[in-house]
């Protein structure tokens, strides 16, 4: 992915809200060193300089903007992005809720009018033969049909930036058999028929499918199921945050996965990362934002 971004030869400017955090600064530093981006670090400048010094990072590589609290820092990061002085916004040490409030503010925020705010991440796994795009592991607790449709569009668009045309999209459930117990079944049926009618485009879709049928050709053969996704999924759409969140965290912890994720529905890429993610994943998030900018 990083190579893909570097090959675009475009340099982006990242505004970081409340930036006095070593993990954030070291990920940004790596991106600057790779020539992916410049950065504006908004926060307590003195503290940022201290952190840089302790980590042996030259703070003059970044533009520093002083700000006294996290709310103002978030507003400033969003303002810089709106005014075109930056093209990517990133959350530093500020709480996610405060940061998103600035991003979602109707008059001064970064949302596309009427857009659904959602999250897509790309996961690299040793046990899978390609990148897997997951939606939504972070924002929408239980997506409605309309939200699911938008989520698919976002994921298809992201896969497209990686050069994947007509990504195979699996609508995930516990079983391939639709059932009245599963509220997602009805939505999935409608979505598949929307693909047939051309109302959802640019992807191959099937669901409900379980993880095996979505990602393992052998399981498809054993069960003798005829599915266009055929154990070769690019995109997995989950019925709930509760199912997607342990899925991706399980892969990070137990299957040596690395991820890059991004908020969708905003005019510009917005990076929101969990504090406990690895530095590699944090760097990947920045690279992904550059790819999507």
């Amino acid at each position, binding site marked *: 992915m990083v190579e893909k971004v570097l090959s675009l030869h475009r340099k982006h400017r990242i505004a970081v809200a409340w930036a006095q955090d070593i993990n954030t600064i070291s990920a940004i530093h790596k991106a600057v060193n790779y020539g992916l981006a410049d950065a504006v670090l908004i926060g307590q400048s003195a503290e940022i300089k201290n952190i840089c010094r302790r980590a042996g990072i030259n703070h003059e590589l970044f533009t520093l903007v002083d700000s006294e609290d996290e709310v103002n820092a978030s507003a400033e990061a969003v303002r810089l992005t709106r005014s075109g002085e930056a093209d990517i916004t990133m959350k530093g040490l500020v709480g996610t809720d405060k940061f998103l409030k600035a991003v979602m503010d109707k008059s001064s925020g970064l949302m596309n009018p009427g857009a659904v705010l959602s999250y897509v991440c790309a996961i690299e796994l040793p046990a899978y033969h390609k990148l897997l795009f997951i939606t939504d592991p972070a924002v929408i607790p239980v997506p409605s049909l309309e939200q699911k449709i938008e989520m698919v569009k976002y994921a298809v668009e992201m896969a497209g930036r990686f050069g994947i045309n007509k990504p195979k999209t699996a609508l995930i459930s*516990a079983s391939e058999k639709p059932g009245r117990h599963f509220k997602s079944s009805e939505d999935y049926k409608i979505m598949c028929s929307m693909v047939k009618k051309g109302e959802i485009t640019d992807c191959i879709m099937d669901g409900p499918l379980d993880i*095996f049928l979505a990602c393992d050709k052998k399981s498809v053969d054993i069960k003798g199921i005829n599915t266009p996704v055929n154990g070769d999924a690019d995109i997995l759409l989950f019925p709930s945050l509760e*199912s997607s969140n342990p899925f991706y965290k399980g892969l990070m912890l137990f299957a040596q996965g690395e991820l890059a994720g991004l908020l969708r529905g905003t005019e510009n890429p917005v990076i929101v990362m969990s504090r406990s993610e690895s530095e590699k994943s944090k760097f990947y998030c920045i690279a992904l934002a550059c790819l999507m900018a």
Partner: protein
Amino acid sequence: MVLKSMSDLKAIVEGKPGKKLVLAAAQDQHSLGAVLRAWKDQIIEPIFIGDKEGIQNICYAEGYDITGLRIIHEPDIDKSVEMSVRMLSSKQADILMKGKVGTSSLLRSVLNKEWGLRTGNLLSHIALFEVDTYHKLIAVTDVAMNIAPNLRDKISIVNNSVSLLHKLGYIMPKVAVLGAVEMVNENMEATLHAALLSKMNQREQIRNCIIDGPLAFDNAVSLESAQHKGIKSEVAGDTDLLLMPDIEVGNVLYKSLVFFAKAKVASIILGAQVPIVLTSRSDSEQAKYDSILLAAAASK
């Protein structure tokens, strides 16, 4: 005691007299191999009930030696299942295993009021995983049986699972109630259930285990993640049992651990008079063998 691997599970049953396992509708090429292997390893004493000719044909084709195997001929599938279940309810055997019969018809027989294996407890599924990147086995429930358990169901599921873990030698298993987040959120029912279960545990309404939740997956299995977030919990990072919010969450997690994390898995049904081995066609032979092992260890 805490089990670190499937070999620890094997150590529990090794050297003990083999438990009697009844394979219902035994003419099933997907389960018969694992049963015969467990027989050879003296883990169980199998009794095959089903179509004798069908069983012999499969064994012949696969090259299995079945000299001395007890086979009861009953070509009719429903009858063979009933016969199997009756054998267990009359205490002539210790473990029930599904052969070439649908899950729903097997369970219907298990739940038969006259001659079934009811105990009054909810039936629930438990899966024990061995993952390289976790320091011990981790049990996950319920990934296959109860679709959207309510609070009362979850209490039964925890009790079923904890009594299994006790049989396996655990003293105070650590139970993490999984949520997408670790904060109680009134819009996410699972987090409310988790908070209630934790409190009921503190008040000793649910005993013999330590329950904490809601915990997000990373906090449940990684102390580092929990510390990052400043979560103080006896369970975080050291979970023995993970309670799932519902089957969609559980099933996705189960399958991704098996497929992406190359986990070894053993699973059985709890809550009946005897442990039930109910594997699916797409489970590996090893998983079926390990499930038999778990059933034997659970059968005391």
